[in-house]
């Protein structure tokens, strides 16, 4: 009765293994060997041939496509941000000890203080709110947690752990000051000494 189930076992893969003489009396081992050899032969068929496999493949492809599409969103075709370099005027237009708030929309304060001009980022170093310049108190004061910064941008009250960051500032070809927001200078890293972080007048 084991004879009819044997033919599948005579595939090249099966014959490569040494034949077991003791097998015929037991019906079970050939029965086990049979599905194994069909799986080997038809592994591609099993992967791509059944409806079940097609469904899984389709779902994997769809989910993968969605993930790729989502990742694609991280790289927009057009960036509607203002350019990171912009002109803010001639150096002699700035008054010592005054904070220019005209460029707050571009995340920048221009300050002339103690003979140098620098461009401060308007992002609070505590949790990223936008502080306000309080002329009467001569400080930048954050409305979220009360961090305070002096006109130099140095933190002195509240929880802000470090000074405001400076943007890159230089004098352009036409003599106007140019803010470069692609460069930032952090005081606590000793970067405010860099000549790119301020303009001497």
């Amino acid at each position, binding site marked *: 009765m084991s004879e009819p189930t044997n033919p599948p076992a005579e595939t090249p893969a099966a014959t490569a293994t040494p034949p077991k003489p003791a097998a015929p009396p037991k019906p079970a081992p050939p029965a086990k060997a049979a599905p194994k050899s069909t799986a080997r032969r038809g592994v591609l068929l099993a992967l791509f041939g059944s409806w079940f496999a097609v469904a899984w493949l389709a779902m994997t492809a769809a989910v993968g496509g969605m993930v790729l599409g989502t990742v694609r969103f991280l790289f927009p075709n057009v960036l509607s941000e203002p350019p990171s370099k912009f002109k803010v005027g001639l150096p002699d237009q700035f008054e010592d000890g005054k904070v220019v708030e005209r460029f*707050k*929309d571009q*995340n920048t304060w221009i300050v002339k203080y103690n003979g140098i001009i620098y461009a401060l980022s*308007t992002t609070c170093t*505590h*949790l990223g*709110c*936008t*502080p*306000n310049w*309080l002329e*009467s*108190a*001569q400080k930048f*004061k*954050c*409305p*979220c*947690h*009360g961090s*305070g910064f*002096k006109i*130099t941008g*140095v*933190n*002195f*009250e*509240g*929880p802000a*752990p*470090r*000074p405001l960051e400076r943007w890159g500032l230089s004098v352009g070809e036409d003599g106007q000051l140019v803010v470069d927001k692609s460069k930032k200078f952090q*005081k*606590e*890293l*000793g970067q405010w000494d860099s000549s790119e972080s301020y303009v001497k007048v």
Partner: protein
Amino acid sequence: MLLFGQGQIGPEPFARPNEIGEDPVFHHQHLDASTQTGVGVFYLLIVLMNLGFAAYWFYNRRDRKQANIWIVVALVFLIHAAAYLFHAGWILPAFIRNAVDDFIGPVTYFMLSLVLFILFIYYRKGCTEPPVAWGILNISLLASGWAITDSNFRSIITKEDNVPIVLLIFSVGFFTWLGMRKAVVNDERMARGEPPLEKLEDEKVLVWPDLVYTELICMVIATFILVIWGVVLKAPLEQPATSAKAPNPSKAPWYFLGLQEMLVYYDPWMAGVVLPTMILVGLIAIPYIDFNQKGNGYYSFNERKVAIVTFNFGFIVLWVTLIVLGTFLRGPNWNFFGPFEYWDPHKVLPLNNVNLSDMFWLGLMGRVFEEGKDWFLRELPGIILVVLYMAALPPLLAKTVLKPFYVRMGFVRFFVLVTLIQFMAALPIKMVLRWTMNLKYIVYIPEYFFNI
């Protein structure tokens, strides 16, 4: 400029804040007719409440003395109601308002809430007696009625998104009273050798219909109230958001104001990530730490002293009172304002917060560190303190004060509990250090954005 540009240590030579008298809003206190009518109706409701309470004592408890007391109280409120309904225009005297504003500050507010909490726990028996608790409720309602005649107070308390906080004050007060009252009654019973009240009512009710019907009715009432609320008090809309202009003050949703207050004292990494995680982990860990079998299924204080005091300290003192502080007392620039103070965006509070490393190296040793160099040596004093606090304190406590706990709880449970409590205590400790020593950070390593 000194180390890390902290500037001079000491008060800034700024101009003093505007005297209160200069503020036009403060001077022109007046109550318009509709507000007076509203306050009058408010008092009338309190009159009815007290008459009901008196009737309860008279008819149910046959206590004429109590009934008389509450009728007299109702009369006091009736006089108030009449005065406002006939538009007498009484306003809380300015000297009281000024005295309250002068007295209250972050320190006094926190200390006051802490002292009240301790008093409540200590005198829980007296405080939760129904006439005493009712008296406290009456006093708070009378104080609210007086306070609301001040236009600065009124403008903040009646802001649409602040209304839930007013409800919160009274509902937290009510439920704290309710739980504590039941616990006190049971403790007295158990001291006499009687079983707690809950053990007597072993009459069981069915889920269907008893529970499900109750839930249905609650659902209908809650939906009704929310719909009315949504129609009457409209959600405030502000100007379109831009990164260039933050609203001043910028406030988190009310349930996060405790977190926002925490952020005033800690680095965002600590207050925004570590401490909230520890709160959640601590709440999850409660069943594993608290193996006290007593107090299961009935109210009791004496059998669960540590658990109740610890939880209520964290919830009431460190969470609810900070929400109230953040809602009503934090104004423009996140400055502290008294309840009757005008929210002046130009109020100047001279503050100068200094790091521990500056205090130690500059103040004591006279040494200045170059920026971005030698941070480890610079912050060593703070690091040692933090390591001592986190690593050395728990074994010390296990050996000394908390030895009985350590013996009963075992190594792992005890250290998890102590660590969680240390994280909880870290907030008031830092607050007190900020207020008393103007301390900014104990460990300050901006090079790696790590500050404690």
